[in-house]
């Protein structure tokens, strides 16, 4: 190369000034690393293969979500919300729309409530499939990865038939949903769930009692209950330590109060517990989806409230009031009354909360996302320190750190 070499800037500063021991080595893992999902850097001090201490750096996917939100109307920022936890994008949509609806005092229709619950559980399925597929692939189990990703692909195509997109849907709307179910959607859903059960049983057979898998995951990445609570862990991470904390049961929202489901809880707080909790939660989600498909009432999808719902296109073209309403909603955004609100949903990672502050206009004053992945990264060093270097890979996979949510 002819260009003179110039030094490349270092975006982080390690907290390790000096090594703990004379003969320990400081190693940089990531951020462009398959195990850390491309966006987390772990600076680890090693004694041979054992990690003495680690310094975890997030932020490599900080895309300025909150700042973007302050520049868009309440409706226009739904695509940004989607891309927070991009593996279960619908749950982000519904949590955000739920927060705005709470602040506006809008009550969604019964059909919308049940459909949002069904799609939330569908997203939970997709998220757990992705987490397990990636985690198992990183341990070398390519077959399990291919099985799980194949089922996930059927689900992506199925959701694309409903929403128009495979991965990031932008399907939630303030006061309802973008569109209703197409004909035959629930039939196809039942077909996919049957195929899911077939393939999951194969993955169970390959992995559950596999000696190598148990050796790599049992008693690895252990976190105690006290530490988990102190470090703000929620969701699967907290349930793996034995605390039966699930927002769907504790503070029910949407239609969860009417559903019959169990909350799987672990015993040791290690990687194997988290793997098994996710497998069981997927089965519970399938059970919930089947119940919801039976319970789904007829009726409108969007609430009939002109503060947030767009009028019918026919009316927009013929009536002046609808035209003005449509124009105001698009240009100014729905006027959310001044105030603040915090609404949390149980995302596959944990408590996903939206704290929104409004000053009465159509654009938000502040939209803050309480991201479970970010909080889990705060305590990840407890699970990694003292273990082997190779244990970082399954531990990280079982935390299910999603970069878009962690760094926002």
């Amino acid at each position, binding site marked *: *190369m*002819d*260009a003179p070499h110039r030094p*490349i*800037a*270092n*975006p982080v500063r390690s907290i390790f000034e000096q090594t703990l021991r004379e003969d320990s080595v400081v190693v940089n893992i990531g*951020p*462009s*690393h*398959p195990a850390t*999902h*491309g*966006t987390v850097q772990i600076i680890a001090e090693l004694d041979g293969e054992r990690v003495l201490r680690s310094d975890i750096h997030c*932020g*490599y*996917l*900080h*895309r*300025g979500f909150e*700042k*973007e939100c302050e520049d868009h109307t309440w409706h226009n920022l739904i*695509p*940004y919300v989607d*891309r927070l936890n*991009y*593996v279960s994008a619908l749950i982000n949509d519904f949590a955000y729309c739920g927060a705005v609806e709470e602040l506006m005092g809008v009550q969604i229709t019964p059909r919308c409530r049940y459909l949002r619950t069904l799609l939330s559980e569908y997203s939970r399925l997709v998220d757990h499939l*992705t987490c397990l*597929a*990636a985690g198992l692939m990183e341990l070398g189990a390519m077959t399990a*990865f*291919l099985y799980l*990703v*194949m089922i*996930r*692909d059927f689900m*992506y195509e199925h959701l694309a038939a409903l929403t128009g997109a*495979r*991965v*990031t849907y932008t399907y939630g709307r303030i006061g309802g949903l973008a569109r209703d179910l197409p004909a035959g959607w629930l039939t196809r859903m039942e077909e996919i769930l049957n195929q899911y059960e077939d393939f999951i049983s194969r993955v169970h057979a390959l992995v559950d009692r596999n000696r190598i898998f148990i050796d790599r995951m049992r008693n690895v990445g252990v976190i105690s209950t006290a530490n988990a609570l102190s470090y703000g862990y929620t969701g699967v991470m907290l349930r793996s330590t034995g605390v039966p904390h699930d927002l769907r049961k504790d503070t029910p929202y949407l239609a969860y109060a009417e559903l019959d489901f169990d909350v799987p809880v672990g015993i040791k707080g290690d990687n194997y517990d988290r793997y098994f909790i996710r497998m069981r939660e997927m089965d519970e989600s399938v059970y919930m989806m089947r119940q919801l498909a039976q319970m789904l009432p007829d009726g409108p999808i969007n609430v009939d409230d002109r503060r947030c719902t767009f009028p019918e296109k026919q009316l927009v073209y013929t009536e002046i009031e609808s035209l003005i309403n449509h124009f105001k909603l698009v240009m100014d955004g729905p006027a959310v009354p001044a105030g603040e609100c915090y609404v949390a949903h149980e995302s596959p990672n944990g408590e996903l909360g939206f704290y929104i502050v409004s000053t009465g206009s159509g654009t938000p004053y502040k939209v803050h996302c309480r991201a479970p992945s970010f909080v889990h990264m705060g305590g990840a060093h407890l699970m990694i320190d003292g273990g082997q270097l190779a244990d970082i890979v399954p531990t990280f996979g079982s935390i299910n750190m999603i*970069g*878009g949510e962690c760094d926002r």
Partner: protein
Amino acid sequence: MYARTVPIVPASRQKDGAFEYLTTRKDELIGWARKFSIFPYPFVTACCAMEFMAVSASPYDTDRFGAALPRFSPRQADLLMVVGTVTHKQAPILLKVYEQMCEPKWVMAFGVCATSGGFYQNYAALPGIDKVIPVDIYIPGCPPRPEMVIDGIMQLQEKIAGSRHLIVNDRF
């Protein structure tokens, strides 16, 4: 700033018919071999990772094109697939990985965030990776459907097949 893998041949060189016939045949052979044995380095960051996983598995399967086997070391890879948003914090890492790759190397910008910053036009996101490294193929989409990715890979294969591959010196 960065020399491309295909330097423009100056007019003074275009004289010897037999030699040019030989280099063309050689280029076709090397191009055919290189286009069907792409080793990607998946520089994966964000949501496009989901479609990257989907395109590597059935039914889309980049393995049919010889482009499935990822090498997670830049020394062993020849296609840098930048999948997802690259932020300003990540840009030095991207540059470092690109510089560590050996020639011949190609860069694919997978998704609109890698192409132009996507809809993140703010202080944090890099407005397109071609601000720091040269890009060979851009695949738009947020995220792009797997068929679009395969179309992009096939266009890249045509580009590789049609380019000059200098293996001995700057003439052959």
